[in-house]
């Protein structure tokens, strides 16, 4: 391929890439600080009290009663949304405003729950969904 043709081809490719990127949106929403397995590794069922947990993780988002004890819940969310509008590729040449959008949202809703006995000692603990965390990926299919 002659050097001039190669240069034009590369320029066109870069231009198309820029126009595609122009239709990009990246959004992230976080609720509270996500808790990881490492953050709760100190909890020993039958030994650790709710007060110990609160000392490390802060107050839970909710405390509810059940027949077998008290449930303390820490809720968190790490939502990731990305969107690409391929309509921008034909925008410079089109008389209308075209849209060809692909987008994807990973909600990343999770909670850490503790079950405590009558003396506020933790008897069971678990993450609700055990998510690894969503990624920014606009491909929905």
């Amino acid at each position, binding site marked *: 391929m002659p050097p001039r043709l190669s240069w034009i081809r590369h320029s066109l490719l870069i231009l198309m890439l*820029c126009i595609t*990127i*122009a239709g*990009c*949106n*990246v*959004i*992230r*929403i*976080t*609720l*509270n*600080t996500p808790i990881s397995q490492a953050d709760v590794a100190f909890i020993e069922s039958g030994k650790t009290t709710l007060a110990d947990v*609160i000392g490390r993780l*802060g*107050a*839970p*988002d*909710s*405390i*509810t*009663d059940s027949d077998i*004890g*008290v449930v303390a819940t820490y809720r968190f*969310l790490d939502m*990731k949304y990305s969107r690409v509008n391929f309509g921008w590729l034909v925008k410079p040449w089109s008389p209308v405003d075209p849209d060809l959008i692909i987008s994807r949202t990973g909600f990343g809703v999770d909670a850490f729950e503790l079950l405590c006995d*009558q003396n*506020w000692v933790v008897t069971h603990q678990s993450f609700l969904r055990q998510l690894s965390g969503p990624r*920014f990926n606009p491909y929905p299919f």
Partner: protein
Amino acid sequence: MSVRRVLGIALLGLLLTQGCAFSRGTLGDEIRADAIASIKKGTSSKTEVLAALGAPDRLLQVNGRDVFQYYRYDAKAGSLLLILVNFSRLSIKSDDLFVILNREGIVEEVISSKRTDGLEFRFWPFGD
């Protein structure tokens, strides 16, 4: 500092912040630290708690005790609208206070955390 310099800095500041958006939303009233400090475990009564903090957002029955829950949410959103690419980040954190009362209506435990202190406007959605 000369007027020209001040105008130049102001103009530069305006140019640099073009395409930026700041938004904030709150739910509930601030839970005052002095009000929390005034509640003493083993001595404060239900009436004193209500006088210091007002009516609770939620009233729970836990482990045979009354629990008053107070909460407040704070949300800060930052957006970079760069024409080519848009980045937005919304961070939400909550302050929570639980006051556990025994059967006699005396405060048994006070559990609180203030997460909103470290809440900042963030634009970059990647990373932590």
